[in-house]
């Protein structure tokens, strides 16, 4: 009898609980209506590793309008896990999502997703050779993927393995091209700049630089500038002073231009649109003229005390106005900030981004 009572009372009670969790609510939304500025700057927000919360922020330097999370808001599709870099070719934008092993392709003006390139191990940067050929560097594949952006397929690979288990070399990073040669820096526990013949799709040379070349820029004279952080203290790979190096156009030798003190770890080497001034983060933001007679110039001081806690996480220079954009990831678990400065380092604007802003891409 009592059993029956329990069933009569209990079952309806249980069934009435259906759908307590509103987990899917996130996906029930309307695309927000906004006018997309024709020209603007994408901020690439890495998000947190394994959280899948990478995003893109869009900023119009003219009206100072900020549009949050444009890719997700437009496509109801999360970008993925750790957005690393972005390239624009004609009307399409290619955003490389490192820990999702893919590149999303979307219209740079409507943000509507057009396709994807998948099958990449741990992609970092994309570089166009032609309309039908691009290279994608990789942290773990020990090869550079050759992709066809039109068919959105991986068509080949350029092996870059040194066939040695130690330090997992080579992890390829940024790419710059001079003539038919593509230069890529091997940053992680490494000290090489590899030279790839883009007609033959193979490594033809390597240039030794200081330890851990983390970023590169090419100046108006086609000199390749390489910023090396020198590695970390206590690592078996070893540590040396950081250095800014120059590789003359077509040369296979790197010469040291700036020597840093052992505790400095500079990063994010960038160049302005006219190719005559370099910029980098070394706690604060510095500029350095490529044919300088003087040393680097302090341009933007970090607001972090003693620069010990450094939220300055990304840097870019507007190729047209030479204005400087600095990304600050704060504590990496909240929305970051971007500070915009005049070419002389005077504050112009600040705006909030997504989580861990690390890179920029100009849509002009």
């Amino acid at each position: 009898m009592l059993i029956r009572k329990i069933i009569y009372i209990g079952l309806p009670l249980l069934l009435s609980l259906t759908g307590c969790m509103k987990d899917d609510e996130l996906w029930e939304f309307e695309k927000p209506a906004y006018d997309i500025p024709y020209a603007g700057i994408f901020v690439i927000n890495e998000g947190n590793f394994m959280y899948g919360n990478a995003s893109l922020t869009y900023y119009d330097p003219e009206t100072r309008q900020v549009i949050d999370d444009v890719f997700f808001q437009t496509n109801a599709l999360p970008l993925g896990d750790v957005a690393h870099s972005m390239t624009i070719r004609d009307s399409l934008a290619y955003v490389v999502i490192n820990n999702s092993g893919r590149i999303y392709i979307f219209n740079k003006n409507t943000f509507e997703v057009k396709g994807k390139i998948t099958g990449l191990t741990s992609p970092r940067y994309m570089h166009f050779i032609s309309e039908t050929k691009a290279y994608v560097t990789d942290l773990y594949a020990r090869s550079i993927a050759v992709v066809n952006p039109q068919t959105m397929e991986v068509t080949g690979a350029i092996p870059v393995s040194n066939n040695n288990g130690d330090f997992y070399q080579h992890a390829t990073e940024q790419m710059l091209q001079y003539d038919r040669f593509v230069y890529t820096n091997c940053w992680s526990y490494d000290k090489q700049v590899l030279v790839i013949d883009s007609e033959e799709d193979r490594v033809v040379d390597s240039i030794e630089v200081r330890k851990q070349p983390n970023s590169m820029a090419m100046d108006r004279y086609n000199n390749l500038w390489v910023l090396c952080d020198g590695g970390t203290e206590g690592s078996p790979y070893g540590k040396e002073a950081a250095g800014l190096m120059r590789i003359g156009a077509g040369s296979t030798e790197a010469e040291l231009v700036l020597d840093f003190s052992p505790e400095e770890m500079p990063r994010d080497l960038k160049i302005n649109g006219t190719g005559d001034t370099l910029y980098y983060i070394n706690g604060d933001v510095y500029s350095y003229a490529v044919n300088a007679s003087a040393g680097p110039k302090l341009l933007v001081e970090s607001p972090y005390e003693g620069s010990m806690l450094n939220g300055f996480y990304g840097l870019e220079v507007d190729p047209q106005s030479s204005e400087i954009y600095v990304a600050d990831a704060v504590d990496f678990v909240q929305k970051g900030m971007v500070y915009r400065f005049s070419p002389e380092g005077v504050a112009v604007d600040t705006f909030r981004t997504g989580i861990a802003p690390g890179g920029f891409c100009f849509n002009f």
Partner: protein
Amino acid sequence: MRRVACIIAMAGLLVSPLYSQGMQDSVYVIQEVAITKERIFVKEQAGMKQTQVDSVVLQNKAHLSLSDLLSENTSVFIKNHGRGALATASFRGTSPSHTQVSWNGININSPMAGMVDFSLIPVYIIDELNLKHGSASLADRSGGIGGSININNRADWNDKYSIAYLQGIGSYSTFDEFLQVGVGNKKIQIKTRLYHNYSKNDYTFYNRGIANIDPVSGAISNPIDTNHNASYMRYGLLQEIYYRPASNHLLSLKYWGQFADRTIPKPTSYEGPDNSNLNSQEDRDHRVVADWKYYGNFGKLLLRSGYAEKGLDYKQMNQVPGLGLIPAIWSESRQQSLYNTFSYSGGTDGDLSWKGSIDLNYHKVRSADSVSGAGYEGQRNELSTMFAVRKSFKDRVNLNLMLRQEWVDGLRLPFIPYFGMDLRLIEGVDLLLKGNLARNYHLPTLNDLYWQPGGNPDLLPEVGYTVEGGLAYQQAFSGHLLLTELSLYRSQIDNWIIWIPSYRGYWEPRNIRSVLSKGLEYNIQLQGYISEFNYRLSATYGYTSAVNQGDPLIWSDESYGKQLVYIPLHSGNMMAHLGWGNLFFTYQFNAYSERYTTSSNDVSRRDKLYPYFMNDISAGSTFRLKRLDLSLEFKVYNLLNEPYHTILYRPMPGRNYQLVFKIQI
């Protein structure tokens, strides 16, 4: 008669831990069921908030992991990284390393990372589970700013021989096998437990992280994916030997070894090659502890020595053309700890009791990644001395003063005092007003100090100042027992360690946060008997406000005054267990309010986890076949088949089932 046997078996399990502890006040025997009142007015425990997890719960969840039990039956919040994956605890809004975990008196927190992965502890190896909330944990050791979780094994001196086997078969190719063999007499008891758990864990889910994009229309659809690379396996052995040469001597030796192998799933959005980004983790544990307890005329002496060793390997493999599958990360660590305790206590029978103890522990860690070569070696010596004095006044007031002084690598830490009090509000009634006031310290972990790169040897210990108060009430009615407690606490934790990026480009731990954790804990337990039914109801509710009050890193830092990530403001659970004849039925409910994943408590839809409500039910039957006690139980998890996440973009399984079969001689 069959029914009687079953009820007595259940009741026996319910009562025996209390008997052996000598804690029972009075025993009410109503028909076949014994209901035992707990002794809640104990001067040695004055001011301390404790939870003794019921043996019915331990038995019901024997085939699960401790992480499941803690989240469903206690006020500890478990951050679960997926089914079978890493599960860490937050006690009263604190960090995983602020919960001290012991097994038979030795601490089992990793000296490397400070925390415990509760998904690796099977409930099956637990005979007694005790939680000390907040400063109560100072009775055993320092460092438990959030509290402590204490796992104990004990001898059943009435056992002559016993064999028990438990088989679980569940969804997603989940198989659990547990075997227990005991033999002994009044002088010696030997018990062996063996277990093996495996799950392919290949549930399917609607994958929002991957899009199929129609090349013509541009329409987006999401695939149904399988939770690949998520299998887990563990097996282990628990061996106990107890020897009682005389009634006042007890010697014991216990060993617990376990091997666990887990693959760690790729991000759900991963679209790289199948044979890349393959992550796996192996945990190898050996723990051994030997005790000598002597009950003399003047007091009780305890000598204990223990050794714990943990090997933890983490690998990431990728397919490289021409080379095959090669490691990108091959990190191996070995942690060794040596524990020694000497304690002497006296006067427990009188109005005034005291206890003195000395702990001498040593930890050594070696960690290295054979790919990058990065690694470190670190060690630490800890000496802790404690003196406590407790006084009872006319069965109305208990006072408890515990003083602790510790040295780490020869350096003296500040003094750790605890003062607690119980007040019996009405004579003869178990209605107590209780409270305590304490300071506690938590040492940086060896990773915090020495991790390569980033370890910061200049870190200071985290320090917590806690005040708490509450009411406890116990009442036995005819055939029913009510036990309920309400606690309010406030903890200020300074020098809170977090890892943040440094100008060097890697992350470093720093003492920069200050956290104010305030909250309320309420729990109620009602058990008894209505005509032919025996029932047990228990529920907990927690309000946890854990707010960052550290100086902002920069003006744009919006984390000040915000709830810590992944800590729900409201949490609660409820369990109802009903027995009728040889049938039993259990309903389990567990809920959390939303959790933030950003330190700024972003309310944007993408950055928070939606409130969680979980319903599980199970039903079973016990029966007797000649000399065998058998039991068969069917369990339904996620009864309402709800899609949910416990971390971002890691969908959890929908409704799933398990069949549990037990056989006992």
